[in-house]
């Protein structure tokens, strides 16, 4: 079976960490590089974490440093959300591998050309690296098969009323990506939230005891303590402080697309400063006249996601 070439662009980050575990466990993926971006924490930490996460999961691939700040707006890091290091209280063994000396966007371009049009990208942080890639390399769209983002939302945001963090943090880069003509898929905040695993789901998953499940359990403790309060109330879920793993669910939708329902729509990004900055405007009624540039995940099957996670933990027991 031909493996699918992937690059994972991320800002580890607690949920990026578990998402990397998931991606690395998938036999069908040939992960050509992990590229880091500032977002959940600063670029030094996200890059360090990316290296160490690859090491702990035995993923032998390029790790390349990306953008330290958004393309145009001031950076906004949510202090404390991911702990001081970005991985909660967990301290990983330091990877002996060094960063690739090239910038993230140069690595993405080089790999895209090498893969002759088959390269897919999963982007789980602010889209700055992709924005710079597309600006520096106007022919990049020719070589990229698909970009799947964890980002945006149907309605409810987290950074502002309707703005989800990854898109909100770098609206210009997000706008560039959505207008790039590269086939896109978007797994948004609200959709992810509605398929959130419960605390007892996680207990079931952690029954599979191995190095990775133990690390995951430790990392997620930081998220659990904070809870997701308001989202629970809005989506009429009981206030169950289980962790919300956006990036992980996004990767799961790529690993097993059957767990999600997608609808193709025209999506654009509101970049103006104001209360709607970072909102993903989804033309559900198809009235804009624009071509439909994005597969929007409208629902994810919780049981299906759980099964994907179960398979992942089982993989690491071998």
């Amino acid at each position, binding site marked *: 079976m031909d493996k699918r070439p992937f690059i994972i662009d991320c800002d580890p980050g607690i949920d990026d960490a578990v998402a990397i575990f998931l991606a690395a466990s998938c036999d069908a993926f040939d992960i050509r590089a992990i590229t880091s971006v500032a977002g959940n924490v600063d670029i030094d930490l996200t890059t360090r974490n990316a290296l160490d996460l690859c090491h702990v999961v035995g993923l032998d691939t390029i790790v390349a440093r990306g953008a330290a700040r958004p393309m145009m707006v001031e950076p906004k890091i949510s202090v404390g959300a991911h702990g001081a290091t970005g991985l909660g209280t967990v301290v990983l063994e330091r990877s002996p591998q060094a960063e690739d000396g090239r910038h993230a966007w140069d690595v993405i371009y080089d790999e895209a050309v090498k893969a002759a049009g088959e390269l897919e990208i999963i982007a789980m942080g602010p889209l700055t690296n992709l924005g710079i890639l597309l600006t520096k390399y106007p022919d990049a769209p020719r070589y990229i098969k698909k970009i799947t983002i964890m980002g945006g939302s149907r309605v409810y945001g987290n950074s502002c*009323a309707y703005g989800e963090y990854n898109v909100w943090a770098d609206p210009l880069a997000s706008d560039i990506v959505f207008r790039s003509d590269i086939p896109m898929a978007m797994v948004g905040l609200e959709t992810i939230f509605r398929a959130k695993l419960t605390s007892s789901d996680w207990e079931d998953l952690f029954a599979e005891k191995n190095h990775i499940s133990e690390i995951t359990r430790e990392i997620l403790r930081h998220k659990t303590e904070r809870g997701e309060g308001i*989202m629970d109330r809005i989506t009429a879920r009981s206030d169950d402080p289980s962790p919300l793993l956006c990036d992980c669910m996004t990767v799961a939708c790529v690993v097993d697309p059957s767990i999600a329902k997608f609808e193709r729509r025209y999506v654009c990004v509101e*970049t103006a*400063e104001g*209360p*709607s900055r970072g*909102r993903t405007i989804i*033309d559900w009624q198809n009235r804009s006249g624009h071509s439909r540039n994005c597969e929007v995940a409208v629902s994810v099957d919780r049981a299906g996601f759980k099964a994907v996670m179960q398979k992942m933990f089982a993989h690491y027991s071998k």
Partner: protein
Amino acid sequence: MDRRPLIIDGDPGHDDVMAIMLAYASGRFDLKGITCVNGNCPLPKAVDNILKTLDYLELDIPVYAGAATPMRGYNKPAVMCHGASGLAGPILPPATSKVRDMRAIEFIAKTLRESDEKVLLAPLGPLTNIADFMIAYPELIGKIERISLMGGGALHGNVTPAAEFNIWHDPEAARIVFSSGVPITMCGLDVTEHAFVDPSDIQRFRDLGTRAGRFAAELMDYYCLAFQRMGMMENALHDPVAIYALLYPEKVETHKYYVEVDIFGEYTRGCTVTDMVDSVPGKQPNVDVAFDLDRNDFIDKLCDALVKLG
């Protein structure tokens, strides 16, 4: 029960007319007057529509003309929904009564000044008149008991994916009204989409046997047809919800949120940004946002009104 003083501001408009009938027939309001604004159709047509309708139904309510354009100047009449006249469908004899000389905002000011108690406002169209009033008479803002408006949408829009028509038509006016501190009930698309009429409802209006019932049926026939032509099955009866929410607040599900009208966005201009996730620290919830209502009761109450009007 005492009748509460009420001014309705609208851009008739099929559903505006239904709302006026509901308000008048309930007997629970002292309907001081109707102010007209540009929106569904140009202002002269709005005025003419309401005069014709009131004459036809033999209702004695004074009518005042307000703003002919939104605050920033240009008009976008909703011809697709309401036809070129703004009230396409029933054929009415020409109006005999006339619009009053006083301007809309002066009428609102006079009413508030002279009233012993606070006054309710029910804006059913773009908020241009209300905002103009607030700017011209800031000392009277405190005499507004509540604004129950049809407009906005916390979850999505109609004319654009984010914005609902009334707010979109005059975002600056809406921003002024929403940040005024007056208690506001926002009956936006979130609730009005639950207040739809279907063919059996229209038949029921007709079967009431009254002139008002037949009139309503003819209005709704055109209104529903217009939406079908646009490929939408939606035939929500938006404006009467704002009146219904004043009459039966216990039958409307609301949540209090901080709402800000976006005047800045390229795609989101004119949307009511409703912070349902408490993302803006320190902002006090300022609007009761309506999300659902008892549709069957809503239709029942409309039928009651159409019977009472005869």
